[in-house]
């Protein structure tokens, strides 16, 4: 900036008059004298206005610089926020003093004298370390992201308000009896969060992201907590599979679609509940029918809506593991339990580790910030973990409408009027948007082009899951555990169980929708005959307790055999089952198992699919002409142990071959039939088909796509292998031994606010989408979000998650747990008393 000369060197008027050349006309001199101060003032006004505007108001992506960067109350306060020391705090609402012990790694131990205080203090602790994350999660579910992030978030907000997490949460809260323990827990938790908000505002210690984005968090309510529960349900169970299948059906035809997207999985699975099953007369699932033009148009409209949503909002592919081992197979003589739920890996993590001690609760494990209970963990008698049960919880309906009946749909023999809900969506930097949501008996209308599509979703069933969870954390045996889960609705989970008396169990608790008739793998008629009529009786859902084998396991696979009488979903709702097969292979091997074996299995990198397919591929290549590079690649596969290790070049050959094989088999179909769905969206299902055909039906017509002539599996394998080697040579060089998996494959822990420089990685990583150590894709952003191993015989409890307890990137607890997790190690899960005896702890005394 250059100051006006008149300001920099203001000359006395008299002096200026002397210096003025005598020949210069007097009028010009006068103008200059009058002009300079005016110019100076104009410049000062402009610059000052610019500075004040930038200081007081946000401009584009920039926050208001004054409040954002001033050293006392701005974003610099994250330095003070990062310090955690012994403190005594006054929290309004507490009934008795509460002690919070914070381990040197950030794990929190809340010790309260009343249950009310336990949940209040938990709310305070969550908000102290994760308030911005909690606010983001409630905003996501409540359709209020645009209010702070602008129009870029409008699609997400519109979708969430259509789907109705907020409506469901409001209904759940209104239906929750005042005397229910979870009612009191929700209120106390909200009080604790609000205590922290008030404290942070008064001490200018709000998370820096609030300052930088430029808003203040609103008061927390129980409904916010219930919305966050809805967020998780949506991520795990809202599935667009029927929409994809409808579009594929329109392009490929009903015949191929029926064969490639079957109801039962074509490949070998390892169900944990082999039966016998109760007899039941269930409605038969109709055969695949042709999709009409109008249906395809409405499916395309719904596909557009769902495809526009950010990654991770809806269910994609499942990936979680858990298992339990009975004392008869345990080296310690007690039951073992292991669990690692796989979710998007973010910084901060979805998890917050803590222990809760009060008169009625003694529980340790991980909680979701924004919710008051421990979701996965153990108490003094039992331990549990969960995986997604994967059954179909999303049903799409095509509503019958008529121009003569505006705003109505035909259902159960009569015209019904759509209910309407009106929303205003505030948009930062833009005009408030209005949204009208139409609701049929099935649920919200999500697309209105072609035929009107509404969606029935299990997550919209009001469900008092928090009360269930509180009863689970208090259970002392299998009966109490199982009874508590009776009321769990959504998302459906495989709850694995072990206890201190040596019992193990597994139950797929939740809502298993059944329909009267129809093909639920496609959008169905909304006229009533295909409605959801109820769920599988609780005693008939998949479950097992103390099986003769001495172990139980789940990894999103089919829980039952084809004899099971009830409808669970179609094969493509489920995981292909390779992780489950590998876990079953390890657990069923002779010999006893230890806690260390459990931890090793959690980081197992053996690709079960590779172990099936590579021998077949080698056989096919035995009669093929290979160049020296191809021969070297083949030889590496021949001596490979099927482990997707960073230093393994064979792993790269296998993975590239399998992608090439999928493309070689299916891409000609996709191209010739102009399929509108991305093949990658259905690779998991196509992979199961390809596995099955390769092993048992090598002349399946799928290998002879239009334009490629008559082929068998071995022909496609050879072509795919040549292409894979060529791809690797082009991308990684001419020496096959240098094609290590770590050069092709990495993992990233993504910053929740999408600040790439605050993410971790990408860093070379082992495993793939088929291995128990789940790491799908070239750069994996999802995987084991928490690992826990419990050994009741040895009395040891261990756990770890990738990330840290604090969302503050300047804190030592932002990524401090990552290295331990990455190395496959676990930290001891200490009790509050054990933690207090360790070094480096901070203790908070919370008082009224």
């Amino acid at each position, binding site marked *: 900036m250059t*100051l*006006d000369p*008149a*300001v*920099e*060197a*203001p000359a006395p008027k008299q002096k200026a008059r002397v210096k003025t050349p005598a020949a210069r006309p007097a009028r010009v001199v006068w103008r200059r004298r009058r002009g300079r*101060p*005016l110019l*100076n*003032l104009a*410049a*000062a*006004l402009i*610059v*000052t206005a610019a*500075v*004040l505007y*930038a*200081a*007081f108001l946000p401009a584009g992506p920039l926050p208001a*610089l*004054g*409040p954002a*960067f*001033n*050293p*006392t*109350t*701005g*974003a*610099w*306060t*994250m*330095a*003070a926020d*990062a*310090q955690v020391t012994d403190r005594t705090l006054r929290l309004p609402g507490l009934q008795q003093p509460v002690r919070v012990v914070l381990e040197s790694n950030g794990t929190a131990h809340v010790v309260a004298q009343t249950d009310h205080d336990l949940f209040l203090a938990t709310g305070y602790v969550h908000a102290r370390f994760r308030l911005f994350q909690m606010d983001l999660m409630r905003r996501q579910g409540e359709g209020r992201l645009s209010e702070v992030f602008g129009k870029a978030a409008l699609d997400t907000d519109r979708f969430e308000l259509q789907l109705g997490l907020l409506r469901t949460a409001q209904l759940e809260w209104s239906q929750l009896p005042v005397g229910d323990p979870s009612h009191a827990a929700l209120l106390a938790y909200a009080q604790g969060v609000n205590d922290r908000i008030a404290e942070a505002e008064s001490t*200018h210690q709000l998370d*820096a*992201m609030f300052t*930088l984005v430029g808003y203040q968090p609103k008061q927390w309510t129980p409904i916010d907590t219930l919305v966050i529960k809805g967020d998780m349900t949506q991520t795990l169970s809202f599935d667009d599979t029927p929409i994809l299948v409808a579009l594929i059906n329109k392009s490929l035809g009903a015949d191929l679609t029926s064969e490639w997207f079957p109801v039962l999985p074509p490949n070998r699975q390892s169900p944990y509940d082999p039966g016998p099953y109760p007899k039941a007369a269930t409605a038969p699932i109709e055969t695949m029918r042709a999709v009409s033009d109008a249906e395809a148009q409405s499916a395309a409209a719904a596909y557009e809506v769902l495809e526009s949503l950010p990654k991770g909002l809806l269910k994609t592919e499942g990936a979680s593991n858990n298992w339990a081992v009975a004392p008869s197979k345990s080296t310690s003589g007690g039951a073992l339990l292991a669990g690692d739920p796989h979710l998007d890996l973010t910084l901060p993590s979805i998890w917050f580790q803590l222990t809760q001690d009060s008169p009625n609760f003694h529980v340790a494990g991980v909680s979701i910030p924004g919710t008051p209970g421990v979701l996965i963990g153990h108490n003094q008698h039992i331990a549990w973990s969960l995986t997604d049960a994967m059954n179909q919880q999303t049903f799409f309906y095509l509503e019958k409408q008529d121009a003569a009946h505006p705003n109505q749909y035909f259902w159960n023999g009569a015209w019904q009027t759509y209910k309407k809900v009106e929303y205003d969506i505030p948009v930062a930097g833009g005009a408030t948007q209005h949204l009208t949501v139409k609701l049929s008996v099935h649920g919200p209308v999500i697309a209105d082009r072609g035929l009107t599509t509404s969606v029935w979703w299990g997550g919209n069933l009001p469900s008092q899951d928090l009360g269930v969870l509180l009863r689970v954390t208090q259970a002392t045996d299998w009966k109490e555990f199982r009874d508590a889960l009776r009321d769990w609705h959504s998302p459906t989970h495989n709850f694995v169980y072990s206890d201190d008396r040596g019992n193990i169990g597994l139950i797929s608790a939740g809502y298993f929708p059944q329909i009267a008739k129809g093909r639920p793998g496609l959008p169905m008629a909304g006229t009533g005959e295909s409605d959801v009529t109820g769920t599988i009786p609780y005693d008939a859902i998949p479950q097992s307790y103390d099986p003769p084998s001495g172990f139980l396991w789940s990894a999103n696979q089919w829980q039952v055999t084809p004899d099971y009488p009830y409808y669970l979903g179609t094969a493509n709702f489920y995981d292909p089952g390779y992780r489950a097969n590998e876990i079953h292979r390890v657990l069923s091997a002779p010999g006893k198992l230890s806690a260390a074996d459990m931890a090793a299995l959690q980081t197992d990198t053996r690709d079960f699919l590779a172990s099936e397919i590579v021998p077949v591929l080698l056989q096919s290549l035995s009669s093929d002409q290979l160049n020296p590079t191809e021969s070297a690649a083949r030889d590496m596969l021949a001596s490979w142990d099927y482990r997707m290790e960073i230093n393994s070049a064979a792993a790269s050959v296998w993975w590239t071959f399998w992608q090439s094989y999928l493309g070689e088999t299916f891409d000609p179909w996709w191209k010739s039939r102009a399929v509108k769905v991305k093949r990658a969206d259905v690779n998991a299902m196509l992979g199961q088909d390809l596995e099955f055909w390769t092993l048992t039906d090598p002349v399946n017509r799928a290998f002879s796509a239009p334009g490629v002539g008559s082929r068998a599996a071995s022909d496609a394998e050879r072509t795919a292998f040549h292409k894979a080697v060529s791809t690797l040579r082009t991308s990684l060089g001419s020496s096959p031994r240098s094609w290590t998996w770590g050069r092709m494959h990495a993992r990233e822990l993504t910053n929740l*606010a999408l*600040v790439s*420089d*605050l993410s971790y990685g990408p860093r070379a990583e082992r495993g793939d989408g088929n291995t128990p150590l789940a790491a799908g894709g070239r750069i994996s952003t999802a995987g084991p979000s928490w690992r826990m191993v419990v050994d009741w015989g040895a009395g040891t409890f261990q756990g770890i998650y990738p990330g840290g307890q604090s969302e*503050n*990137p*300047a*804190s030592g607890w932002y990524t401090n747990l990552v290295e331990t997790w990455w190395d496959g190690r676990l930290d001891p899960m200490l009790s509050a008393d054990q933690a207090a005896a360790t070094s480096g702890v901070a203790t908070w005394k919370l008082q009224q």
Partner: protein
Amino acid sequence: MRLLVTIVTGLVVAIAGVLLGAWWTPFVIGVAFGLVVTRPVVSIGLGAAAGFLAWLLPLLGEEVRYGLGPTAASLAAIMGFGHEGAIPVVLTLLVGTLLGLTGAWLTCAARSLVPRKSG
């Protein structure tokens, strides 16, 4: 002597204001310097210095108490400057300096339009 008292008072008020959360105080002090100090070059310089110091000293206090390295690196990352922690520091001090400077400059520029009383 009067000028010195004015300067010290202005600086103290600016720093105290920022410490109390009134981050815009340097602008007000800049205006005050523009009114009280007759030579524009001096008042503008004082305004800039007051803004600079009023934002620098609390920042130094934070550095001494907590260490600002990780915070500066995090802020740089959020702003899209990688982990160049110097950038948010410079930006912060620039904002403080500009607040004081513009307050004084605007006042001086306005004053220059007002005719001086003769005699």
